[in-house]
């Protein structure tokens, strides 16, 4: 069983609000990732981290930001949400480059 948790599971908010999507893992993985996915569509990497105080932007441009102050925690923040941010956000972690990703259950974000 994957020990990676995302909260909230669903979030509906108004335009302009600041939000933080939480992601935590208890496996001690150094590598963590955020993917964005529209329903039934491909995954786009938006942020990744290889360890504490290490964060990089992914392939898909995103207005979100991330932080990695602790190994187990990799939150994603949107300073001012817009309807174009409506999507599913998936957090993942892995023990190494040869290892599989463990995915959280995702956060379905709807911005009205």
């Amino acid at each position, binding site marked *: 069983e994957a020990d990676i948790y995302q909260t909230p599971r669903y979030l509906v908010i108004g335009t302009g609000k600041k939000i933080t999507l939480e992601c935590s893992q208890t496996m001690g993985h150094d590598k963590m990732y955020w993917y964005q996915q529209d329903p039934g569509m*491909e995954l786009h990497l938006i942020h990744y981290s290889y360890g504490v105080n290490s964060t990089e932007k992914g392939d898909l441009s995103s207005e979100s930001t991330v932080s990695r102050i602790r190994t187990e925690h990799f939150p994603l923040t949107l300073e001012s949400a817009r309807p174009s941010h409506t999507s599913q956000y998936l957090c993942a972690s892995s023990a190494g480059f040869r290892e599989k990703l463990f995915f959280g*259950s995702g956060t379905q974000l709807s911005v009205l």
Partner: protein
Amino acid sequence: AQSVAQPEDQVNVAEGNPLTVKCTYSVSGNPYLFWYVQYPNRGLQFLLKYITGDNLVKGSYGFEAEFNKSQTSFHLKKPSALVSDSALYFCAVRGANSNTGKLIFGQGTTLQVKP
């Protein structure tokens, strides 16, 4: 640049028949290849991976995949499909020489198994 392609948006098979979901990739050097499955309203689950060794890789739920270096393919297969296999399947690749370790996903293939 790394890339992965799943040429079929949807694959339809009858229950009990064999299934194949296609995947081709492009990386510098040797590839690390993965298959994931996503059931409706659930997160992605790992099925199998190829790192090195035997070209035929066996994974979860009776799935297997064959690595073909000359054709740069990593097709997912199952000898006898179940209705419960209906889901969205993603192929993913990472180059062994990559210094970023980013895993690139294909666009996904919807598998529909009919009774």
